[in-house]
């Protein structure tokens, strides 16, 4: 167990969850791994942050909405990764799906991924190339949220691939459409691995700063 951090991760037994969390580069960030089908509030009591792994069962997450939002409302951080139908259980967010274009980089086209809020501390850890890969759709976050990675189509911003919401709960929600654990744990796509590692580095430093600040 890493004694410096109190980050938990919620996973649900997919092979890529297991393989990603067996990788010491990733596992070392987490004080606890929690299996979604048996989640109870006591699992979260001593955590400062909870990462909701990508591609968890949306129906099980909806059943746990009260527990998860109570966690955030206690001033803690909930990091929600992609493909979990977050728009069906997080407050105030809409979702619009897009067809997946995984070959854009071979054709040299612009995927439309844009940096926002460049002074945000996340950008001291994550780079734009880390988040520039295929996406499955975008969010329209609640008003007052901080956009971090936007999607543009035909030169117009249509929504967010990554945002921070410090308004909707008593804590903080960091929400993305991207699914880096699936790709890292499936031995596929180095950019996803970089995003996952750098996102977790940022989160760990944030928590340390908050504790010492």
């Amino acid at each position, binding site marked *: 167990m890493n004694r410096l951090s109190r980050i938990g991760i919620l996973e649900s037994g*997919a*092979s890529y969850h297991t393989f990603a969390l067996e990788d010491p580069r990733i596992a070392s960030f987490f004080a606890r791994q929690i299996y979604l089908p048996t989640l109870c509030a006591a699992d979260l009591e001593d955590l400062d942050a909870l990462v909701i792994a990508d591609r968890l069962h949306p129906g099980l997450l909806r059943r746990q909405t009260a527990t998860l939002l109570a966690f955030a409302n206690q001033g803690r951080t909930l990091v929600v990764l992609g493909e979990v139908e977050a728009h069906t259980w997080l407050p105030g967010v809409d979702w619009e799906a897009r067809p997946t274009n*995984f070959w854009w980089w071979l054709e040299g086209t612009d995927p439309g991924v844009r940096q926002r809020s460049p002074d945000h501390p996340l950008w001291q850890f994550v780079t734009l190339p880390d988040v520039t890969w295929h996406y499955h759709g975008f969010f329209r976050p609640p008003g007052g949220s901080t956009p971090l990675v936007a999607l543009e189509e035909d030169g117009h911003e249509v929504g967010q691939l990554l945002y921070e919401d410090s308004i909707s709960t008593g804590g903080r929600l960091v929400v993305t459409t991207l699914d880096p654990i699936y790709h890292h744990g499936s*031995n596929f796509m180095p950019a996803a691995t970089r995003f996952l590692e750098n996102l977790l580095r940022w989160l760990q430093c944030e928590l340390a700063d908050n504790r010492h600040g």
Partner: protein
Amino acid sequence: MPMTEHMPSIASIVLLTMGGPEPLLVQHFRQRVCALDVYDLPEADLTNVRGLLIGMHCDQRQLQRTQTRLTEFVVHGGRVAVCGQIAHPFLPGLSRFTPLQNYCLEDLIVYELAPHPVWNGVVLDDLIYRRGVVGFYGRGFHIPLAGAVVVNGLGLTRLPLDFVYRLGRGEVLVHGGNDLWGYVADSTSAHRLTPQLLDWMECV
């Protein structure tokens, strides 16, 4: 509490799901395939089911808890197709996935080692390259049970990527990459995989 309010009427082939929208496979083959939430499998009536499709997103810990039920299904004559990378083996004969390390293009080339009706007429290049991108079809391997027939091998050493083996009166097909039915809407010969897989399951 079941994930689905009403258990679906079971088709001859069942696709296990992790919630989410209706799978493309079911949209294409509604008469032959129905979706069943993986957490509802323990209570489902599989009496008239011939085939189970278990994809790469399934909760394998849950599948492992259902191992007795799955094993009985195959032993009594059912066919199971397992796609993805195994972390928690849930049937006799399944082993943990071994990922390729520092792989290059040559390591991802697929070679036919034995004919099988599921891959009949499928041009291997249509599996290796998808819109020019390599790696969807396989990035590692599982060690098959002795007696298994390896259908397709990966890379210069022909690592076992696709194989089939008998278990009692039934049969298990393993593909160590992205779901075979993920190619259902492809415009290449890869789209043949899905109907041929369903045919293979129903011809028992």
